[in-house]
């Protein structure tokens, strides 16, 4: 069974039910039920026309769920005479779904869950597994989200930025369950980029592709973190990098810079270096300057300080770091790295150990602990 096809059809079928008069919450429930049935039935009995099958079954589920008989009959009659929407209408419907599921009235986590279900076509169980919560909890999160947006009328385009924020979250904070959420985020962003000509949509797609391309090299045995400088660059996916660079260049040519384009540009410069020594740190610092200007984000400033350390030497990096709040996440790790490069392994070892204690995840903590251990072993010998 082609699960991706099934997922791709989800927003289309929700759109068709919507055009037949179903409200979003009911249409989405009906399509989810139809998806679950498709997963059950299709492997043994694949339909000739998957979309037609889904529409028929989802519509039946919808009718079963709505009790008002008179309106039901009216709907039934109307639906039968109705032609399937054309490609333009399908794209419009799908785009509206992106906006609705990322509506600003939703919390980020609710928007993520709703997007994955209604736009991504994942089942509640899959989403729950991906985010390591019970299915009942995820079901509630989704139904609350649907209640929150139930009054929203989408007769004008929503805010692209909120959609991008949700897709970025799916990509960046995705857990590794059965579903590859990073790949799913790319699929959804690619689909969005095909429907809407927007430089930051392209910027985010490029950013995702450029990072995803490095994924095979980013972890070693047992999930061990391999830092960029030590990655085996022959394991980077060159065709994905080429696509990312291509998408980015087209976006940058529009001359409307945004944070995702700037981040993608930094990723592209890393991807462009065949060895770590060939990295163009001066240009990377320039892009961090842009990123800081666009976002004023402390995380961008921290990463900029590290890049300054590479471009102008560790002293310059430490000076840039000194201007930042030491309580920032990964501040100690950055300082440790720069102190080691500055020839001060004692301070570096102490800071690596401190950074390890504050690390928010295990691979990072293990990596930082190993750095501290490496320096301490050096200092003993």
């Amino acid at each position, binding site marked *: 069974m082609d699960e991706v096809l099934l997922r791709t059809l989800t927003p289309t079928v929700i759109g068709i039910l919507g055009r037949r008069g179903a409200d979003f919450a009911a249409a989405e429930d009906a399509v989810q039920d139809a998806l679950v049935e498709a997963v059950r039935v299709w492997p043994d009995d694949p339909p000739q026309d998957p979309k037609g099958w889904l529409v028929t079954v989802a519509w039946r589920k919808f009718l079963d769920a709505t009790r008002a008989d008179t309106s039901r009959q009216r709907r039934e009659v109307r639906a039968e005479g109705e032609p399937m929407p054309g490609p333009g209408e399908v794209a419009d419907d799908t785009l509206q779904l992106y906006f609705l599921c990322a509506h600003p009235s939703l919390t980020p986590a609710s928007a993520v869950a709703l997007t994955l279900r209604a736009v991504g076509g994942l089942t509640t169980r899959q989403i729950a597994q991906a985010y390591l919560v*019970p299915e009942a909890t995820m079901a*509630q*999160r989704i139904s609350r989200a649907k209640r929150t947006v139930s009054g929203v009328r989408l007769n004008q385009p929503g805010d692209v930025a909120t959609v991008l924020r949700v897709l970025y979250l799916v990509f*960046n904070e995705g857990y590794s369950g059965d579903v590859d959420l990073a790949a799913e985020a790319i699929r959804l962003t690619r689909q969005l980029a095909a429907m809407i000509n927007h430089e930051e949509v392209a910027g985010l797609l490029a950013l995702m592709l450029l990072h995803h391309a490095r*994924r095979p090299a980013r972890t070693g045995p047992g999930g061990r973190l391999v830092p960029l400088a030590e990655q085996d660059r022959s394991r980077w996916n060159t065709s994905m990098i080429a696509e990312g660079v291509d998408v980015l260049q087209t976006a940058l040519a529009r001359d409307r810079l945004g944070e995702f384009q700037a981040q993608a540009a930094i*990723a592209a410069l890393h991807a462009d270096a065949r060895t770590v020594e060939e990295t163009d740190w001066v240009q990377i610092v320039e892009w961090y300057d842009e990123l800081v200007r666009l976002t004023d984000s402390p995380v961008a400033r921290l990463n900029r300080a590290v890049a300054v350390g590479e471009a102008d030497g560790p002293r310059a990096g430490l000076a840039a770091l000194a201007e930042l709040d030491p309580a920032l996440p990964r501040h100690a790790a950055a300082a440790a790295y720069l102190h080691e490069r500055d020839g001060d392994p004692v301070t570096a070892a102490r800071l690596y150990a401190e950074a390890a204690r504050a690390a928010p995840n295990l691979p990072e903590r293990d990596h930082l602990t190993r750095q501290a251990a490496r320096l301490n072993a050096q200092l003993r010998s």
Partner: protein
Amino acid sequence: MAKYLLLKHYRGAPTPVNDVPMDQWTPEEISAHVQFMQDWAARLEGTGEFVDGQALSPEGTFVRYDGEGRPPVTDGPFAETKDLIAGWMVIDVETYERALELASELSAAPGAGGKPIHEWLEVRPFMTEPPTITE
């Protein structure tokens, strides 16, 4: 979202305000306490924030490896152990502040006299998955 462990201690937490041992409560007070915990968990499931809740028996055993081919060595329970976990709730919430808010609600569970125990709960963040984008 971030996951937090809310830890209840039999021993090892600072003394609660309403510090009467459970076996001194009336049966109705115990029922009210249990009901409160169940309602709290059910409500969190409804808000999409509940992950897990478990209670532990106070009696535990310490175990350690004793070399290849040898049976595990056991010891305890130790009366002098300072920290004794009674159970936990795991929540998945948007912010740290929300985790504190929920822990505080849980700490208001009724005890003796039907009054809140004001028990101290320990809030511990889970380690996450590493983010994809770091530089």
